């Protein structure tokens, strides 16, 4: 629940109006929420591992993957806009990460598609007031994509709605490593003392620190695979995990709602604290 800005010097009036606005917001969200979901139990941050396009194509007998990836983008957009409607604060999407075993042509096609989506859909995201950030090692991406990423981030920086974090060429171990490197640099130049290093400080060095809620409350992975695949290794310590058997292109609003209901039913306990 967020508080409104002060409209009067009287502290009690501020609190009264802040609570009233929060109540109005909760009622508005409740009106848009499907049955079974409670606004006060919605996660602040949902992370999604996109998976299953290739297998979906194989099952259906499609040889070309690109149309599937394009349709996958549409599924993701639908989920993101649902999250906007339901006032989820942060959504993270694990797009892809480079691996030596990956087939170059597929990676190349995927990146072209990514550029296409970003160019065509930016206006729609702006309409939903979505702030978009990209995390991961962007230095290895094509120049054109790097420029597009910068444009998208700059264009959406002032948006105050949902924060969409797209992990592109991101690895959980890479993130932890770069945080370690950053801390080592700060210790070396004297801006940080060794005794000040703790978990909280370490988290601030991770790429997810750009978000108001950097650690996901809920992780959804499509396609039935049950692993993290080097996504948010550090950030998932206390995250509820939901593995959906549906492949990405079969993942619909009702499946997303099922994941949220499952999340709400589980009593949340953060590792004994």
């Amino acid at each position, binding site marked *: 629940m967020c508080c409104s800005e002060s409209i009067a010097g009287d502290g009690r009036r501020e609190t009264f109006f802040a609570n009233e606005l929060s109540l109005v917001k909760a009622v508005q969200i409740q009106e848009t929420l499907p049955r079974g979901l409670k606004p006060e139990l919605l996660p602040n941050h949902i992370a999604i591992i996109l998976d299953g396009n290739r297998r979906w194509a194989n099952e259906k007998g499609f040889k070309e993957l690109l149309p599937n990836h394009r349709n996958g983008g549409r599924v993701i957009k639908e989920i993101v806009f649902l999250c906007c409607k339901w006032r989820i604060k942060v959504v993270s999407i694990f797009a892809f990460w480079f691996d030596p075993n990956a087939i170059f042509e597929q990676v190349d096609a995927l990146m072209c598609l990514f550029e296409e989506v970003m160019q065509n859909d930016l206006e729609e995201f702006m309409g939903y007031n979505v702030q978009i950030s990209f995390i991961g090692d962007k230095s290895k991406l094509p120049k054109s994509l790097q420029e597009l990423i910068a444009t998208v981030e700059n264009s959406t920086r002032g948006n105050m709605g949902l924060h969409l974090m797209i992990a592109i060429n991101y690895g959980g171990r890479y993130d932890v*490593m770069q945080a370690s490197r950053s*801390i080592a640099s700060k210790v070396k130049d004297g801006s940080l003392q060794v005794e000040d290093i703790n978990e909280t400080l370490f988290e601030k060095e991770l790429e997810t620190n750009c978000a108001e809620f950097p650690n996901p409350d809920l992780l959804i992975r499509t396609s039935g695979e049950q*692993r993290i695949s080097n996504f948010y*290794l550090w950030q998932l*310590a206390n995250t509820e995990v939901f593995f959906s058997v549906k492949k990405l292109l079969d993942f619909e609003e009702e499946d997303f709602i099922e994941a949220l209901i499952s999340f709400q039913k589980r009593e949340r306990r953060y590792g004994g604290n």
Partner: protein
Amino acid sequence: MAFTNESHNLDLNAVTDLICWCKQLGIKYITLYDDLGKLKGNQKDLFRCLDYKASLLDGNNNHPLTKTNGNGYTRPRANGTPSESINYIKGLTILSKQEGRQKFVRDIKNLLTVEPDRIDIELVQKHIGWTSDPEMLVTFGTKQCLFGFPPWQLRLTEIFSLPSHRNITYKTFIDCLEKYSRTTQRLGA
């Protein structure tokens, strides 16, 4: 194996069953994790129970640590120490939340003497990595959550969830391993 929200309700009998089944199936390395550290705190009892199970499995009814009651079942003496169970303890690690992110931060501090530009994934792995990352993680409990399990090691680990470790049957455990055997890793985009 991670006992997520069952730390308050651990059944050492069931835990040792799981250890013995793993060992009998040839699994070399077993890590037990509960965030509250109850297993660590009860290591003596755990090893005593494991010793008893080991003696039953090895068919040693004359084990000095056991005595029979009227029903013919053997049970351990009160002050038993691990002996026959040495093969079952080898490769066994018991962890709690302290070995998760807290330990990682402590280990990272050791890296601070290195030039920052030299820090890469391999170097971090050397400082904090285990002998090998777990291939499979089984979580027991109603919540499907990692509860602070050491983060670095779970990069490609297959995660399975079972509602409880209490009263777990051998068949349930084998079903889990069979699901694992059917998984396929697809790396990359």
